[in-house]
């Protein structure tokens, strides 16, 4: 296990390090200059040079890069160019909103998927399977932004029972009941495609498990089908599902950009958009690196959980 862990960790670190150089270079290649954004159209050459020197953009590339890594290590990201305020606090505010929303959606999707697929397998009724299959296909075939907007129009405009957008004014933790009202619509819109993918996968895995010899043995011993599904088949089907869940987290974060746009949710997605359009290097490069780190970490955690739940993965060595 240690060897497996170390090799996965090494490869994760390598990808992150490469990504940091790539992102730093890429941001500086984007056409348009933060100096002209800051200085305005009719600035003199001297004032532009002064701004350039103040931002440290006149130094060579590697010197800027090393400086940035040093800042990152000290968690002191300095002020943003354009969006106002400290980069660190801008990002941590946005990150809190996005993480709460994404985790809420993930929990909704996972819980919904476990309920739906075990129900489909335990009862195995024709109408239930057709219904689930139809809802599932609809959830995948309608774009997220369309679902989100329809949810707003139905539950916030036509029947105003839930807020149309924004984050709870008192924060997420002081008044959880009000926070929940703000989370339901964006959470549902975000969770729907992930729920569909998870349900499809888990139902399929459960069906495969039920064809295994150990299930036949259990049935022969007189253990009811429901108990086999809940206590044995589910446990064997979950490892692979966790990996799929990890992959879904990536697409949830991607989908969060759309949902945040519809629900005026001040999260990281909006920050990326604003940051790139105003050429705010300090904000954008940290955000892009953050998205790489999250991806690498979810992959790593998914692999490790998979190895922990399924000994064959870690015993067969490094893949």
């Amino acid at each position: 296990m240690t060897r497996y862990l170390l090799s996965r960790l090494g490869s994760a670190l390598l990808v992150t390090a490469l990504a940091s150089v790539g992102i730093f270079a890429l941001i500086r290649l984007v056409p348009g200059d933060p100096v002209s954004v800051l200085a305005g159209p009719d600035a003199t050459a001297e004032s532009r040079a002064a701004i350039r020197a103040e931002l440290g953009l006149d130094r060579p590339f590697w010197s800027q890069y090393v400086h940035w890594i040093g800042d990152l290590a000290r968690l002191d990201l300095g002020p943003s160019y354009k969006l106002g305020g400290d980069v660190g606090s801008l990002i941590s505010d946005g990150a809190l909103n996005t993480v709460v929303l994404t985790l809420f959606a993930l929990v909704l999707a996972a819980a919904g998927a476990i309920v739906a697929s075990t129900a489909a397998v335990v009862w195995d009724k024709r109408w239930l399977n057709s219904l689930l299959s139809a809802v599932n296909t609809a959830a995948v075939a309608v774009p997220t932004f369309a679902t989100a907007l329809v949810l707003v129009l139905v539950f916030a405009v036509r029947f105003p029972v839930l807020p149309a957008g924004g984050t709870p004014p008192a924060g997420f933790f002081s008044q959880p009941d009000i926070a929940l009202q703000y989370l339901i619509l964006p959470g549902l819109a975000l969770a729907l495609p992930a729920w569909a993918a998870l349900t499809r996968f888990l139902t399929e895995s459960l069906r495969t498990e039920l064809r295994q010899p150990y299930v036949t043995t259990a049935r022969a011993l007189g253990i009811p089908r429901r108990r086999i599904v809940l206590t044995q088949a589910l446990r064997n089907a979950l490892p692979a599902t966790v990996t799929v869940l990890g992959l879904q987290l990536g697409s949830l974060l991607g989908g969060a950009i759309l949902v945040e746009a519809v629900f005026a949710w001040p999260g990281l997605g909006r920050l990326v958009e604003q940051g790139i359009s105003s050429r705010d290097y300090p904000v954008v490069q940290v955000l892009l690196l953050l998205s790489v780190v999250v991806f690498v970490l979810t992959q790593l955690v998914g692999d490790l959980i998979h190895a922990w739940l399924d000994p064959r993965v870690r015993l067969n060595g490094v893949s």
Partner: protein
Amino acid sequence: MTASVTEPLTPVPVGPVPGDPGPVRANRLRHALLHGRGRVGVVLVGLVLLLGVLGPLLAPYGPTEQIQGANLVGPGAGHWLGTDELNRDILSRTLYGIRVDLVVVFAAVPVGAALGVLLGLVTSWWPVTDVIAQRAFDLLLAFPALILGILITAFLGPGVFTVAVVIVAIELPVFGRLVRTSVRTVREMPFVEASQVVGATPWWVLRKHVLPNSLEPLTVQLAVSMSVAVFVEGAMSFLGLGVRPPHPSLGSLIKDGVRLLHEAPFFAAGPLTIVVALVLGLLLISQSLAEARRA
């Protein structure tokens, strides 16, 4: 002198090669597409394709043509799908809008797939290039699709071409990794070793053994990727990174339609139906292919 005499000698497999796909498997996939769910999918995608290709002939008005006195008119004889807030015929705009998605789905996705397959095939044979390419693919995959979209738009500006580039960048690593898995499995097979003993070059093995063996998973992924591409176009148009305003695309039409859902509930219906039909068709195709593969 006949041409065949001057041709270089290449190893020719004698008789059926164990593990290689025979003509039976190709038939199985074709059978899946012509029956049941697969056929429904093919019909749906074919219908949308036909509407898009024949769009300019079928559309009663131009895509940006403004019709006097027809402001947010409901569906009727003159305007089958009604008109929008700028007096434009929604049916015509939808028909022209389909063409953007067709470019993205049937040009950008195959280009990304082909590039990914080629890169994955060539690099995965040697350990050094394999590590470099796989880490590069990891890196591309690490960015959520839309962040990649926003980043590429910062370089190229909004437009159909940008959407196509984004799709290529999203699909390239997906196919590169998929092909690599096939290369890894197939090269361990005894018949590959045997063909190397009789002098087959890496390129020959890749072309004759690896590629045919990976065609099935690649076809399934192609159908999945095409449905993803429809969403990416929609999402980018929705964020204002796709087609530029006066010109329609399915994504921008749905965005306008849902924005006006209260005043004109009919607006979004047409374009949304087309998107759902296209995605549903592609999903059904991918499901039926995946099922035929497992059977």
